[in-house]
């Protein structure tokens, strides 16, 4: 029924549970798993345009490299789980200020037919609240979303 399952992660324990859920499901459905990690967007520093760069200034290139390495670290968990279950897996990491938009875009770009994500993650304070990104994905996605607890 599902061919390509998108798993957006942020590296939190709950999102690891979502990864397990997605990989288990993909194994059973003989589906592929697409891991996604969304890093923060690069923000220009107002003070960096004078003569000298302020200490701690990160250029766009450096930022991209950092996002890439952080993404690779987080996505390794997906690749590992998929390999252990014998599920085909592709991992991508993107930069974006609005993770939910990146998730929706990635689902479209990779023609995924299911999104498996945690109910909340890093910013979730209460069990009774849905995560902000999750609820936005739920509102905007045009494919089914499996919300893991």
């Amino acid at each position, binding site marked *: *029924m599902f061919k390509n399952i998108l798993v957006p992660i942020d590296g939190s324990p709950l999102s690891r549970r979502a990864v397990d859920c997605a990989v288990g499901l993909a194994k*059973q459905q003989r589906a592929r798993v697409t891991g996604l990690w969304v890093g923060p967007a690069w923000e220009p520093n107002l003070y960096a345009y004078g003569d000298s760069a302020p200490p701690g200034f990160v250029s766009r290139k450096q930022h991209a490299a950092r996002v890439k390495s952080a993404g690779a670290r987080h996505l390794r968990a997906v690749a590992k789980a998929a390999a252990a279950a014998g599920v085909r897996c592709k991992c991508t990491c993107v930069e974006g200020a609005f993770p939910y938009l990146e998730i929706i875009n990635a689902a479209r770009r990779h023609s995924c037919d299911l999104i498996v994500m945690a*109910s909340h993650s890093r910013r979730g304070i209460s069990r*009774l*609240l849905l995560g902000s990104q999750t*609820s936005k994905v739920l*509102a905007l*996605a045009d494919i089914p979303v*499996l919300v893991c*607890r």
Partner: protein
Amino acid sequence: MFKRILVPTDGSAPSRRAIKRAVQFAREQKARVHGFYVGPPWQLPVYSEYVPPEVISPKAHAAAVKKTAARYLGAVKKAARAAGVRCSVRYVLGAHPYDEIVKEARRRRCDLIAIASHGRRGISRLLLGSETSKVLAHSGIPVLVCR
């Protein structure tokens, strides 16, 4: 992976689509489905001086809900039978459908709730249905939100 899938329905078109998807999913998972409908509770009429002729007695209300439930849950049964999926159905009366749904999931030891993104009251594609978002908030098990 999932053994018992709870399929709450309100008979609306999105929820009929969710039933279809849930049953198909259950067939692949070799799971069973449990159709569930929450009817509105009988309400005490607030007239004191006289009883208007169209007032519905609790008995008549229960009969009407039973009939509606049979129709809505019949769709679940029919879809399950066509797909060869084991199926049970139940309906209750309750003012807060999400509460009944979460409780039923616990009572029946379901491990997944397959629900439409919105039902009768969903007007906009950009909004999640009120009961669906409450189920998402209160459920202790994964929820599959169908479009």
